[in-house]
Structure formats: C-alpha cells, structure tokens
C-alpha cells in the first residue's frame, strides 16, 4: 500500500489552546492580506476536539480578548467568573487559611472553565474559518530533509499487537508543510524528538514537570458557592515534596478537584494517586464530596520549569508553542493564556515566512524576538527561579517566591536545577536498611465511595484504545527485574496514575513487566519520571485515549 502525501503551507500539530490559537491567527492574517489563501491543516490525536485535554482550570482571559475580542457574543464557554480565592495550608487534620491571598493567586477578573469544553469551542471557531482540522490523527514522526523540518508523518492504522498488518491496515500520511508549528503539549513526542535532533535544550535549564490528577464531582447542592477558587499547600505532601491541591466550585453543583505533585520527589515509594486519595480524606475535601458522585477522572503532566527551561523554539521549517515549549507560569498556576499567546506569535512568524517564501531558521528566529517583546516574557521572566527554589523545600520556596515578588525578579545568579527524575533516591539511600515492606497502604484509603483504586479511576477517564495494536509505551531496555526492582522498587507502579504498569510475579520466574497500554491516559508521567529514562511514550493508533468531556 502506498503512502499518501499531502502538501500544505502551514501544518499545526496538536489541537489544544496553542494550536487552535495559531490556526485562528493564521486565518485572521490571511483575511487581512487577502489574495490566495494559505492552506492550513491542524492534526489532533483525539477522536474529537478537547477529548484529550485536561486542566483545572482558571483562565486568564487576556490572550482570548486579543485573539477573539467578541468571545462573549460568540458563546465562549466560561463557566463562572472567579468570585473569591482561598489559600489553605493543610495539616493531617486541620487547615489554616492564609489571611492574605498571595498576589499571584488572586484571580479577580479570571474565569473558571472546563478546558475540554473551551477547546471544543475554539475548534468550532477554527472549523468555521474553513481550516482543515483532522481529528484522530497523531503526529508520529517528524519529517526532515536532514537539516530542515519538512512536515510530519501520521501514525499507521490497523497494525496488530505484534506489528503485523491487519486487514484494516492503512499507512500513515506524510504531511509536508513549509512551516510546521509543534503544539503537541507537555512532553510532546515530536517536540521531544526535535529537542534531541536539533539540540534545542542546549544551554537551557532542564525542564521541570509536575503531574496533576483531577476528578470532577457532582456534589449535593448548597455546599460551596460557585466561583470559589481554593488552593492548598502542605498535607498530604511533606516539606520535601512540591505541589498542592486545587478545588474549583463550578456552577450546577460541580466540583473540579485536583492534586498536583512535582515530578522531582525523592522518595521512590511516593505515589501521587495515594496522595490524592489522602487529600480526599482530609476534612476540607471530604466535607465537600461526601454524598456526591464521581463524574470523571484524568491526569496530565504540567511543564513547571519556567522561563529558563524553555527550549530554543525555532528551527528551519519548525516552531514550538504552548505546553510543548513549557509556557506555563507555575507561580500563578496558569498556562492557557500563555499557550494561546505563543500560538498566535508562532502563527504570525509562520505567516510572514510563508509569504516571504523563506522558512529558514534565520527567518523563524523572529518568533523568539516576538516572545521577548510580548507579555509572555513580562510575566515569566521575573518568576524564572521560583520553581527551582522549591527544590530546596517548601519553606525556602515560599520565602524565595515572596522575595521575587518584592524585587521583581532581580537576582544575582539564576538557580540551577537537575532533571526531576534524577532527584529520585534509591530505596537504600532513602530508607537505609528499613525499607518499608508496604507503605501506609492505599488499600486502607479506598472506600469505593469517595476514594478509588487506580483501575476504577481509569474507567472514569473514559479511556479506550484499539486493543489489537502494539503497546505505545516503549521500554527500550528492560531493567525492571535486574535493576529497577532492587534499586527503586519499580516506581512506575506508583507514578503512573492509570495502572498501565504492572509487575507480574509468577512462581519460579523473575518478576516480569506487563504494560497495560490501553489504560494509558496520555499524561506522559512515565516518559518524564522513569529514573532510567528508558520509557518512551509514542502515540497509539489515532483516536485512542481518554475522553475528557467536561474536564
């Protein structure tokens, strides 16, 4: 079977806030210019727009206002303006409310949204412009001519479990573009390959990540005022672990409940899902969700590293935008507006390059200049050291954050950091000789009413994949029984929030890794946090994955 080829002017990989903003901006520029329209295509691996996207989310509407000034009359799904902010420090049984909400966490003028719904709406705006939006197609591979990005190859369909071609086999399509904008999200598989191939992270700080677990709940009426935004610090995390919870009260007795953990924890037996369950047993949360019903579950990694970790964003024929580039403000816990802004700027750069017929690296470098002159830098540069400061613990991080606010980010020397996975300690280092056989167990936390095991949670993510396909989580070198078990006690069992990894112990045989790839919710945590860096996430057959309606 021959492979089809499609030629476009601009290809956008990833239909999230960055990619869709880029598409809309291109169409606006084209209208302004008039004449022969550019051909634009957007690829999205989910079966429908918004199905694979998850966030808190509180939207800073600044970029939206610039991109779609009449967003309100166009029916943007903003669920509620933020009415009040609470910040709590939690201990195991108590909560301490901060008397003053720290300025970065003030959300006056911002909106509570479901990012999935918001992206669906953005996709409608894009499609209304006549732009081709291909859902169910994942970018599998970057196409280059050796020095220059020339497009993307989409994944094959109908490949069986062992690589054989099934009767439904269809090779992926090569989409050639003058400029490709990579918006493949946090730890995007294509951006990861680009960073490697074009050495885009040279002289940059290593990217830092976190993983967020989120649930949507229907709760009994009258519990909490819609528009209430709550963030917590402290319990169930310890001083050494970075993260916290978000609790957003949506209209119609919906609650968005989430828990974010830095993927730079030291304890190899730490499990973000267990921490989430602990949080749900804390009186602050338990009193909200008791008697409610779980509606959805999901998980997603976040780029937390900030300005100094953003890779070089341009190369001949290619640009990187959104979470793939690390555009997130970890101090304000916001990135949607930055993703959208970077998408718009990438679109402007690509448009100029295509019109001038020059997609060279020199021409695309304007993207960086645009970012430097944009509100992105104004926002991210002053707080560039904040996440790194939390590497020294919660108190140091908080104090440093305060200092940054006072000084506007002036600091003699930027803080250095190591990749998060390298901060994980071995069992022997962390626990010495007293490795706990079982940690305070998850089993005791699970009541199947408000707290669940991972597999049950996965069911609530709506995740479905074609079963007869090769695993899309590739373990290059199996070190599970030989090294990882003895050294770290198989941390994949814990950091994966979807029960993808299992160690099967059969009598008389060494423990064997089983990859339940069809549970995968595409959060990318394993690709990020595996201490040996031998796990690679590649897209499964197009369309497979979670179904994050309303998330």
């Amino acid at each position, binding site marked *: 079977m021959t492979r089809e080829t499609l030629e476009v002017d601009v290809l956008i990989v990833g239909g999230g806030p960055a990619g869709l903003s880029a598409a809309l901006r291109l169409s606006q520029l084209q209208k302004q210019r008039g004449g022969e329209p550019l051909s634009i295509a957007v690829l999205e691996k989910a079966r429908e727009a918004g199905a694979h996207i998850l966030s808190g989310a509180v939207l800073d509407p600044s970029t939206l206002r610039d991109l779609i000034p009449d967003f309100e009359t166009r029916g943007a799904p903003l669920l509620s303006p933020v009415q009040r902010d609470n910040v709590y420090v939690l201990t195991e049984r108590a909560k301490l409310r901060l008397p003053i909400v720290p300025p970065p966490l003030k959300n006056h003028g911002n909106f509570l949204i479901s990012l999935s719904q918001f992206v669906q709406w953005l996709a409608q705006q894009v499609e209304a412009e006549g732009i081709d939006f291909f859902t169910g197609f994942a970018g599998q591979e970057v196409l280059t001519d050796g020095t220059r990005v020339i497009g993307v190859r989409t994944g094959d369909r109908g490949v069986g479990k062992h690589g054989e071609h099934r009767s439904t086999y269809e090779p992926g399509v090569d989409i050639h573009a003058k400029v490709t904008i990579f918006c493949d999200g946090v730890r995007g598989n294509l951006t990861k390959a680009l960073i490697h191939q074009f050495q885009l992270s040279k002289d940059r700080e290593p990217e830092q990540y976190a993983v967020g677990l989120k649930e949507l709940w229907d709760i009994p009426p009258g519990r909490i005022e819609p528009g209430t935004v709550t963030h917590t610090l402290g319990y169930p995390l310890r001083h050494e672990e970075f993260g916290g919870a978000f609790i957003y009260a949506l209209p119609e007795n919906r609650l968005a409940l989430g828990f974010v953990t830095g993927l730079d924890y030291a304890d190899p037996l730490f499990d973000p899902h267990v921490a989430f369950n602990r949080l749900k047993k804390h009186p602050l949360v338990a009193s909200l969700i008791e008697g409610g019903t779980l509606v959805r579950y999901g998980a997603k990694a976040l780029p937390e590293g900030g300005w100094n970790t953003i890779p070089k964003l341009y190369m001949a024929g290619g640009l990187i935008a959104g979470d793939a580039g690390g555009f997130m403000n970890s101090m304000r816990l916001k990135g949607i507006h930055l993703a959208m802004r970077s998408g718009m700027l990438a679109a402007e750069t690509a448009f100029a390059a295509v019109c001038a017929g020059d997609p060279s690296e020199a021409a695309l470098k304007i993207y960086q200049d645009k970012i430097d002159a944009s509100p992105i830098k104004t926002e991210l540069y002053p707080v560039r050291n904040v996440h790194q400061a939390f590497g020294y613990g919660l108190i140091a991080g908080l104090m440093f954050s305060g200092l940054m606010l006072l000084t506007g980010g002036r600091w003699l020397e930027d803080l250095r950091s190591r990749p998060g996975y390298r901060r994980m300690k071995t069992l022997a280092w962390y626990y010495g000789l007293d490795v706990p056989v079982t940690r305070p167990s998850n089993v005791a936390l699970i009541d199947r009413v408000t707290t669940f095991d991972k*597999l*049950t949670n996965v*069911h609530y993510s*709506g995740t*479905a*994949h074609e*079963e*007869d396909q090769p695993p899309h989580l590739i373990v290059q070198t199996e070190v599970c029984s030989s090294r990882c078990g003895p050294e770290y006690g198989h941390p994949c069992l814990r950091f994966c929030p979807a029960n993808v990894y299992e160690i099967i112990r059969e009598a008389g045989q060494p423990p064997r890794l*089983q990859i*339940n790839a069809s549970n995968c919710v595409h959060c990318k945590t394993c690709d990020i946090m595996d201490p040996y860096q031998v796990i690679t996430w590649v897209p499964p057959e197009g369309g497979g994955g979670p179904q994050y309606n309303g998330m």
Partner: protein
Amino acid sequence: MILIVAEQRNGVLNRASWEAIAAAQQMAGGMPIGVLALGASVGDAAKELAQADVAEVLTGEHAALGQYTPDAFTMALKGVIEQKKPAIVLMAHTYQARDFAPMLAARLRVSLVTDVTGIGGEGASATFTRPMFQGKLTATVRPAPTGTVIVTVQIGAFRADKVRRGGSASVGPVEIAIDTAAIRQQPEAPFQEAKQAVDLSQAERIVAVGRGITSQDNLPLAQNLAKAMGAELAASRPICDSGWLPMERQVGSSGQTVAPRVYVALGISGAIQHLVGMKGSRTIVAINKDADAPIFEVADYGIVGDLFEVVPALTAELEKK
C-alpha cells in the same frame, strides 16, 4: 402497530429476536404486534415465530436478502415500513441491526433509539432507557412523536422465556421491493474466521476466568467446568492480554458485553471495566479467594475460596447429572 424485525440465518432464528418479541409484548398496550422475517426463504422461521402471541407474522422473501447486505435490508425494510406504517419498529441490537438501523432511520427520517435496556409505559407514550458513556450513565428518552420510531433492544435486557405464546398469528407474505441495481455491497462467502468466532452475546451460559487462574496451564480446569455446564469460555482482560485466550473471548469495556442466564466468574476480582460487560447477566456466580473482591457486590452466589478446590468439586458434581 409494533413491527418486530426478526433475524434469521439459514432458517435459524437469532435467539435475541425472541427478546425483542418479549419487549414488544411488554410495551404493546393494546397495539397489535407484527413480526417480520426477512430472507431468501423464511418459511421455517415464520412457522416458529407464529408460536408467539402476536397478531401476524409477515414473510418478506427476496433472493437479494439471502445474504445480508445493508443496502438490500434497508430498501426492503423501508418498503415494508412505508406500507404498514408501524408506530414502533423493534429489533434486537445485533451486529446486523447495528449495521443497517442507522441508515434505515436516516432514509425514513425517523427517530432511532438504540441499545435499549428498559421500557417504561406502553404504546405511543412509552419511554426507553439506554446506556450512555460506556454504561456509566443511563438515559431515559422519549422519542419525538413524528412517524415511526425504530428501537433496538440490548441483548439480554428482555427475557426470551417470558414471551407469551399461543394465540393465532396469521402467517402471510409481505411485498418486498428491492432495486438490485442499487445494492452497493457484494457479499463474499462467509469466511473461515467468522465461522470459528464465538459470539459470546449469544451464549446462555458463560464461565469466565480471571487472573486468579494464575497460569495458562490451569485453563483446562475452567474448560472442564464450561463443558460440564454447556457454557462458553470467556475471560477478563489480563487473560486475553497475555494471549492465554483469544481477544474475542474478552468480556468487559474493551471486549464483549454479555448477558447470559448464568455467568460464573472464576478468580475475577471484578474491576469496574469487567463489571460493565457482564452485570446484566441473570445469575452471577463468583468464586474468589478474596472476600473483599468487588465481584461479590454484583454476585448472586459467591464462594469465598480457592478456585483450584472449588472448581473441580463443582465440575465433578455437574458431571454426575
């Protein structure tokens, strides 16, 4: 009237068609019930269907209906529905119905309610309950009152043994108009794989194994029980994932949805992904050594014990009979 479309292949009725008749009898509320058998030659099937307490059995015969094609079935049914103007067209949610029902509804521009698990009320005011979001939610819908409504009922949701029999159904032909030139599909002869494939949704009894079986070598244990019970063998995800049984025997959200009369779960813990595929079974028997396993929450009979002891004893007892 309510028109039931019965499904038959080579004169053998699909068991699920009786379930559709049961559903029709439940909701008829005085409306006459007609049953339509479609095929190249459906005399035997019609005779069997006439045992049910219905007003009439219609035989829709045409050479082009000998082998299933969605175009021929849609054309034939469209003609019959336009002639008979039934208020409701009811059929089982079989693979075949899933294939042609949407096209039929679109051609007729009428409502289609699929995979119905329950019917409330009677006649024209009936409401239909159907699963949504992989069975996590159920919705009760009332079709807009415009012309015919096409309804498919989930296999196992209605009980074939509850069909009222007797009565004096007339059997007669109905005119079938098919423009054979407009059939766009050319069916090949059914091929080998399809012959071997099991349709678990048709099984009356199922023995399903889970991870508790521990090794492929222990599968004969379950096979023997299945044989003694006259049951099909099925499995939960890990078993099929390890390749111990073919994927077509997998029950659950990523496999088949089944609703047999008896479902015996051996060493299956009862993850929600499995439960959604079998919770409609009439009688669920669970054998598991973990008394806290969620499977016991849906089981009618539970044995907390070692399946390696329980299953041979059970098999031996069944073989005595």
